[in-house]
């Protein structure tokens, strides 16, 4: 009650901006959200939600090893992210175990390895911030790395935007007209690993998959055009990040969880009220009053 009495909308938004760490958190989380949101359209359409989950969990040991060796953690994460996918492909091909089972067992294996390594290495790695993210405590070197990776992923996705769309839609046609499908497959995986790395700073390893699939799923319910889907996905990801950070600031909640919850609520809203594909189809509701 006390909170409500002094809090106007204006101060709700501007007060946190007086803190340096909040400005940084808002900026970085928006950037991360934009990258993950962009990629999210492709993952949703390609049906790679489970793959996103697998890669984002598998980067854990890479992050730990990189920290211990003093390397950029994105490098370690990237190697383990792509490695997990290669391993999934290999086991699937060489055994009779079904794909979803292989994905499940590989990424949990990697994740467990990461947790064991953290306990063994006993460096100054903050397990909590890896698992649940720490957008409010992001360091300067992390900021630089995040900006670099984000620009890289956005540039790659922008250059190969149409090819990736074709790859998701009809890989066989892509192959038939001489487009390198193998390259696109690994490009998408590479972007996925990199996005998981930047995403884990915002919401942590456990929830990063939400950043990679929820915005795309929300956008998918709201449009029938691919370009619009990308824009909506990015916007909904950024808005959720801002909402999540503000809410966590004012109500002292876990930031990563708040961001993902905001995304989930936006998805639920689209699920219920999307003009064409929502349960209540807003268009039809209004049409009824004419």
């Amino acid at each position, binding site marked *: 009650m006390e909170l409500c009495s002094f809090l106007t909308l204006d101060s709700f938004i501007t007060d946190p901006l007086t803190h340096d760490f909040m400005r940084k958190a808002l900026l970085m989380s928006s950037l991360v959200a934009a990258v993950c949101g962009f990629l999210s359209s492709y993952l949703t359409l390609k049906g790679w939600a489970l793959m996103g989950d697998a890669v984002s969990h598998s980067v854990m040991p890479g992050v730990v090893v990189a920290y211990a060796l003093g390397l950029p953690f994105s490098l370690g994460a990237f190697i383990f992210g792509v490695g997990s996918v290669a391993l999934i492909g290999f086991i699937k091909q060489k055994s009779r175990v079904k794909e979803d089972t292989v994905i499940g067992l590989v990424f949990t294996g990697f994740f467990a390895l990461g947790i064991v390594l953290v306990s063994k290495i006993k460096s100054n790695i903050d397990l909590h911030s890896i698992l649940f993210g720490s957008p409010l405590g992001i360091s300067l070197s992390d900021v630089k790395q995040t900006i670099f990776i984000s620009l890289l992923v956005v540039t790659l996705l922008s250059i190969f935007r149409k090819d990736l769309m074709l790859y998701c839609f009809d890989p*066989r046609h892509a192959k038939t007209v001489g487009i390198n499908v193998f390259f696109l497959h690994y490009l998408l995986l590479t972007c996925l690993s990199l996005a998981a790395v930047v995403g884990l700073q915002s919401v942590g390893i456990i929830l990063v998959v939400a950043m990679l699939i929820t915005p795309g799923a929300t956008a998918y319910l709201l449009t029938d055009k691919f370009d619009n889907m990308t824009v909506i996905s990015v916007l909904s990801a950024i808005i959720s990040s801002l909402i999540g950070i503000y809410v966590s600031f004012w109500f002292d909640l876990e930031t990563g969880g708040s961001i993902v919850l905001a995304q989930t609520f936006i998805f639920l809203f689209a699920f219920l009220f999307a003009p064409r594909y929502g349960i209540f189809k807003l268009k039809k509701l209004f049409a009824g009053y004419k």
Partner: protein
Amino acid sequence: METINYQNFRIEAENICVDYNGKVALYDANLRLQAGQICGLVGMNGAGKTTFFNALTGFVNISKGKIRINGESVRSAQKDQTIAYVPQNEGIDSQFPISVWDVVMMGRYGSMNIFRCPRESDVQAVKDAIERVDLTDHLSTPIGNLSGGQRKRTFLARAIAQRASILLLDEPFSGVDIRTEKLISELFIQFKNEGKTILLSTHDMIHVREFCDLVLLINKTVVAYGETSEVFTPENITTTFGGISPDFLFGPES
């Protein structure tokens, strides 16, 4: 316009084998097609029809044998936009957020720059292709809002826009309305006159008799191949369909 050499083979497949992780999907398959020929690919589900298409488009690697497209490798055929593939309706995600125009434009991707920016000629090719399949009213319609027949025509338009000399069609007549069926039949005659080579898989024996100069009956390997009138015999069909007689499949008339 390039002169059509009717003597050389457009498609030459020699003793090709395809296996998926050691499981044989197709073995010792042969096929030779020239310009202006329409060939029907007939077999049961799982007989290797789609595998055959996959091998010809380079979507799967063959473990044995040789494929020549216009005398060259599959890879150069891909680069030269020689082959167009029209998928089954079931083979594509109809809920993908993409319009008719964008799908047909994908037929031009192979000849565009890396950003896939359409040039004037690409836009014109797409317009013409969409006109030929009678979908001009649906340029910006998402493919999810199309009927099965319209969707099939969209993918035919993509193949037309690609200006390929070889068309591979997976079940072109399945799940389409009568209007589309008529339009496809007319297009086939036009394609033939343009000197295109067509290989189509179908379950419908009437269509085979109607359009196909040649028939390739397969059941993991070639059961019979040749001119439709000679090859399309009850005995061959029975063998192809694993002992089921054509009377049972198509009624006593056949």
